């Protein structure tokens, strides 16, 4: 299916907005304005491609902590993200209880995620089971890194989805590092997709830096899931261009040359090239978008700085649902 120019520009915009927001978060951290950042730079193409293949607000998502571009595509605003970065009141993910980027957005069925990895995949299979019980035609997207596929939680989640042919698509964002550990120390198989054959579902490995190609793969996988034909495992190959988090120093485990080499395959630059080659947009138009993104983010940062912190005693609630109703 050929994408319209409008949709292609929209996808590029989401990648761009997420990228500039992520970059600003690093700056805010260096300025001492935020305590922590965990980044998705280099992973935007896979996230935006998958998000655009979803029916937003209808389908379900159990994301992970590098999914800023996915969440922006689903409707998380820069202002909302900045609130979470700064631990300010009104953060929609957690009311500023969780560390930043542990996303949740109830209005688009994006479920809260914790820090122990692959826990969210099991929830995705449970949501998939509920969808099957209710006979709706929704699907679930769950995302994780390649390191998370070492967890028992992941195997159990995939096993459930395969046994019951649940409408779940597993997006493994293989960014080549689990903090410092490379794939060859995580798995003996050459690709995460190879794990699928032992679990009884289709597994494919795709170029995770090509947003438009990713979109097509996910459209197909979601269609398969939606029509009752079961789950798919999709490994999207990419490269984590930043350290693991603001507390990491990646110079201790990889060379600058390696990182620089991968910057040539930056998915944002690749998408930009495609838009220009296909005459979907001009240089000037794309530069205008860049300016617009930076303005929006500056406005969001100003908004965040003005926003109040939660009251300390809000930490008391809500432990039980009764407190949500009455508190």
């Amino acid at each position, binding site marked *: 299916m050929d994408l319209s120019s409008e949709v292609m520009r929209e996808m590029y915009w989401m990648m761009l907005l997420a990228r500039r927001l992520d970059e600003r978060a690093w700056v805010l951290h260096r300025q001492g304005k935020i305590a922590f950042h965990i980044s998705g730079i280099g992973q935007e193409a896979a996230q935006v491609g998958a998000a655009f293949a979803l029916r937003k607000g209808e389908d379900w998502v159990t994301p992970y902590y590098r999914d800023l571009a996915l969440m922006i595509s689903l409707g998380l605003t820069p202002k909302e993200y900045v609130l979470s970065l700064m631990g300010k009141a009104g953060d929609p993910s957690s009311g500023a209880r969780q560390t930043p980027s542990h996303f949740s957005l109830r209005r688009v069925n994006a*479920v809260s995620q*914790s820090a122990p990895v692959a*826990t969210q995949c099991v929830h995705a299979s449970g949501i998939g*089971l509920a969808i099957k019980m209710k006979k709706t035609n929704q699907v679930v997207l769950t995302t994780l890194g390649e390191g998370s596929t070492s967890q028992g939680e992941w195997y*159990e989640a995939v*096993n459930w989805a395969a046994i019951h042919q649940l409408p779940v698509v597993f997006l493994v964002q293989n960014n080549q590092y689990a903090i410092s550990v490379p794939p060859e120390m995580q798995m003996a198989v050459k690709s995460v997709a190879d794990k699928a054959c032992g679990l009884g579902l289709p597994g494919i490995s795709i170029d995770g830096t090509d947003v438009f190609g990713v979109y097509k793969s996910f459209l197909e996988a979601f269609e398969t899931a939606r029509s009752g034909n079961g789950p798919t495992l999709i490994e999207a190959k990419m490269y984590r261009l930043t350290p693991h988090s603001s507390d990491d120093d990646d110079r201790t485990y990889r060379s600058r040359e390696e990182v620089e080499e991968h910057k040539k395959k930056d998915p944002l630059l690749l998408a930009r090239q495609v838009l220009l080659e296909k005459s979907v947009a001009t240089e000037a138009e794309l530069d205008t978008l860049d300016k617009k993104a930076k303005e929006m983010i500056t406005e969001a940062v100003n908004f965040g700085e003005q926003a109040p912190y939660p009251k300390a005693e809000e930490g008391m609630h*809500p432990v039980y649902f009764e407190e*949500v109703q009455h508190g």
Partner: protein
Amino acid sequence: MAEKALVEAIRDAMDDEMGRDEDVFIVGEDVGQRGGVFRATEGLFEKYGGMRVVDSPLAELSIVGVGIGAALYGMKPICEIQFADFIYPAFNQIVSEASKMLYRSDGAWPVPMVIRAPYGGGIGGGLYHSQSIEGFFTHVPGLKVVVPSTPYDAKGLLISAIRDPNPVMYLEPKKGYRLIRGEVPEGEYIVPIGPANITKSGEDLTIFAYGMMHFYALKAAENLEKEGISVEVVDLRTLVPVDKDTILKSVKKTGKALVVHEDNLTGGYGGEIAAIIAEHAFTYLDAPVRRLAGPDVPAVPFSHPMQEWFMVNEDKIMNAARELANY
């Protein structure tokens, strides 16, 4: 009113709630065709089918994790852990996910689910079919922990647990499944989660117990009455939230407290009851609070003499109560 065994009352509660609410479903090992290894779900597979009485793969973390996902979607899962001893693979899903989901999403994602687990020894089960696990979970805010000791309460509390909008650990004293019998009304009734129950009134001391130990405590108290020792017995029924008012009211009346549980002593739940009494009723005490619990060994040994050495029973409770009465 029919007299029923504990396990039949548990089955009645599930049957009634599944009949009333199509969002309620059961998931666990051998719960389907087999009707559960303790027959708690007997007949339900035939009545409600394999989509509502789901035989899980032999993998406990996903029994709970899939339940959480379904609950997030809006279902009301009853997750059966075949023996409480096997719950540890699911510890991460219970402690990191179910208990924290509501809090970490600022109330956006409630997890209405029940985790049923047969616990306790004295049945020749050895180390891994005899354990008491309540101490691990009473420490975790966000969970409710319920332990019935009569068929009447078992049904009414389980109906409450299924309807509760929070994750509820429902721990079943398996030695009492068929040993404990009592009147159980047909149809719908509720025993609320929270209140303890004074099952015998007395003047000289109070025994606080739950589950199988409450069954023995009541028998011990009846025997002691013949010796001229007047014992009040409180069935805690709900460990979280705990009924402090009933505990304190009783101990203020009798001035002496014996806290009994089958779980081993150190770090056990009885310490919490002892602490509540020490903090809030110290000046009413005529003797130090006494704890009677399982010995601090890793688990219940298999061979009969060693098992009986481990188990708290009617005689041990009577001895402890006599000593306390004579203090």
